[in-house]
């Protein structure tokens, strides 16, 4: 493994990015030497996705704070500067409004920027460019100016980072027509959705999760292929069930799956849907599931008022009202700025027991 790293590093110094055009990222190649079924962390999945798309299309470039020499604040862009050089990987000053606008302008001219926000909290400094300069341009110009840009970075709560660094922006961005908003959960989601986002000719907001970066997931050969892509706008049924539908995205998918295990012990069969895409929202899959189970529990980490869950509940009540056997349920972050103290932070975020309780309520089972 070290030998391979050494060879790749040498090539990087001598030949620059172009000579390595068809090489897979080192982390993937190294993994394929491990015995048994393949696993991949979300971090490596994202890194390999960016690497492959940069290799395939010279118009793709990466821009953001610490993405180059620092190897990425969360190491998502590790190795890319070395492999592709400073003309494909750009370290920016701490000026979100400026560099986001520059990214959007570059996309106007046909390049394919991958703009990293160190966290999406900082995207608020650049939100005018995401919404007014990127999302609306294709419409306002009647198709003359499309914006093939990806805005990516960690979104939502981390651990102990306090009120200004913990907000979830899924609801905000997903309300805007003209944007596509994706939220991966597993390594396969991360690879397939990010590759789809980079190839997509429209602006994509790609909401990652810091606490998922280090998590390992099994990954198929198909997902490891450099042509692998997931469709945008299609949710995934992570677990089949017949008594209650639990719909969520990102980190909460893991919590929902744990909740489903607990519910199964009590004879409740929960169907867990991983949205993958917040905009477009896969209403068809959600409604088909609720028409089967008759019960809905929606889960998100973000603020409860006007959230993603509110949209899902409204959609189900509008389209599948006569199929519902119970009121729709929402489990969301507490309606407070994120506190720092560990016990308060735990109270401010959905826990597995909250999801279990809501599912039981929907099934008319008391505690």
């Amino acid at each position, binding site marked *: 493994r070290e030998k391979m790293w050494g060879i790749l590093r040498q090539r990087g110094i001598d030949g620059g990015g172009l000579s390595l055009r068809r090489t897979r990222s080192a982390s993937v190649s190294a993994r394929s030497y491990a015995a048994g079924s393949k696993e991949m962390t979300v971090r490596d999945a994202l890194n390999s996705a960016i690497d492959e798309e940069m290799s395939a299309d010279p118009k793709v*470039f990466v821009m953001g704070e610490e993405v180059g020499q620092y190897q990425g604040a969360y190491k998502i862009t590790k190795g890319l500067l070395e492999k592709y050089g400073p*003309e494909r990987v*750009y370290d*920016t*000053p701490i*000026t979100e*409004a*400026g*560099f*986001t*606008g*520059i*990214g*959007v*302008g*570059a*996309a*106007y*001219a*046909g*390049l394919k920027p991958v703009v990293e926000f160190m966290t999406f909290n900082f995207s608020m400094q650049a939100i*005018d*460019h995401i919404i*007014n*300069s990127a999302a609306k*341009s*294709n*419409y*306002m*110009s*009647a*198709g*003359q*100016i*499309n914006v093939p840009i990806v805005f990516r970075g960690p979104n939502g709560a981390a651990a102990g980072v306090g009120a200004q660094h913990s907000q979830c922006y899924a609801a905000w961005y997903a309300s805007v*027509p*003209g944007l*596509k908003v994706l939220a991966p959960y597993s390594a396969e989601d991360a690879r397939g959705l990010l590759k789809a986002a980079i190839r*997509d*000719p*429209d602006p994509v907001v790609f909401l990652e999760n810091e606490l998922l970066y280090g998590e390992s997931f099994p990954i198929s050969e198909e997902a490891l292929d450099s042509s692998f892509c997931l*469709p*945008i*706008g299609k949710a995934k049924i992570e677990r089949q069930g017949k008594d209650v539908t639990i719909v969520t995205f990102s980190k909460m998918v893991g919590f929902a799956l744990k909740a489903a295990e607990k519910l199964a012990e009590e004879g409740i069969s929960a169907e867990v849907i991983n949205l993958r895409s917040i905009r*477009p929202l896969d*209403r068809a899959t959600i409604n088909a599931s609720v028409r089967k189970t008759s019960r809905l529990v929606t889960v998100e980490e973000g603020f409860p008022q006007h959230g993603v869950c509110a949209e899902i509940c409204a959609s189900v009540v*509008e389209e599948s009202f006569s199929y519902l056997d119970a009121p729709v349920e929402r489990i969301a972050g507490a309606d407070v700025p994120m506190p720092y103290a560990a016990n308060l932070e735990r109270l401010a975020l959905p826990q597995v027991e909250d999801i279990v309780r809501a599912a039981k309520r929907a099934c008319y089972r008391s505690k």
Partner: protein
Amino acid sequence: MALSRLSLRSNRFLRPSTTAAALPSSIRRHVSTDTTPITIETAVPFESHLCDAPSRSVETSSAEILSFFRDMARMRRMEIAADSLYKSKLIRGFCHLYDGQEALAVGMEAAITRKDAIITSYRDHCTFLGRGGELVDAFSELMGRKRGCSNGKGGSMHFYKKDACFYGGHGIVGAQIPLGCGLAFAQKYSKEEFVTFTLYGDGAANQGQLFEALNIAALWDLPAILVCENNHYGMGTATWRSAKSPAYFKRGDYVPGLKVDGMDALAVKQACKFAKEHALKNGPIVLEMDTYRYHGHSMSDPGSTYRTRDEVSGVRQVRDPIERVRKLLLSHDIATEKELKDMEKEVRKEVDDAVAQAKESPVPEPSELFTNMYVKDCGVESFGADRKELKVTLT
């Protein structure tokens, strides 16, 4: 504009005015295509910051100066026509007019190619025309018709012409500046020898994102030219009330700058030519164009509560860009008064015809409500006001 020196490479076409007037127009007309170089001195010197100012002697030709006259006259008439269309309620919402600032649009075009990019604010009608946009497309857009340059979906502030590298038309003050630096980034990335002119007003000159983008442009040597169209008022606020330092050409600090008489099309041309050469070699530069708008900020603003009518008419008398070019054409015998008046009549007719044609254009189909949201629709649903009544799958 006082002309101090005039040097001619050839004086074959310098006729005494009496002889010129006697010639039938069919013989005189060939002067409009005369590209023999002539040199004109700008009336006002350039002021520079961290660079050597370009020469005041501008290379031009009779054909070019005549084209300035015609193009500016067309722009002027378009804006005046827009004014009356707005008052007749055929144009709705915001309408920001450029009359008085025409020299900037024509002077810039004379110095650059259609592969150099331009991006500007919401005061974009004349910039669109300068990039080769059609009058009928402009009027149709203003009136929200299908024939509009944005199919009626953009409006006054959102004209674009991508095939001429005109990237709009932006409603958020200052947003176009980082966008323009991004266009320059793409030009450098693609190793093209073209530049981007990003236009903004004295109001936008204080925006933080300008300094953020300029910092990056200077660090990365982007071929970005920031052009401050200083018409002295940011909506109703005069420069002395909004900027601690109204020397906009110096505000780039470590970035060189040039102050230009923005009412002199030839000075604008010279400055833009200089800026393009500079940007390709040395990275960003700031141009401050000293200009003036006759209308208020928009059609909702009479423009007289924060400035005197005397000030406006004073500028019109002394600095009007079209009058200056007219005087130049007359004093150099490039055209007669009658020819210029005839040209203005032709332009007026052109504009009137375009307005009439635009009025004939239908409004967009209702289905257009849902088009152009995405390039790749992937079966997305979209909804009207009553989602049970109007639901569309985008394909």
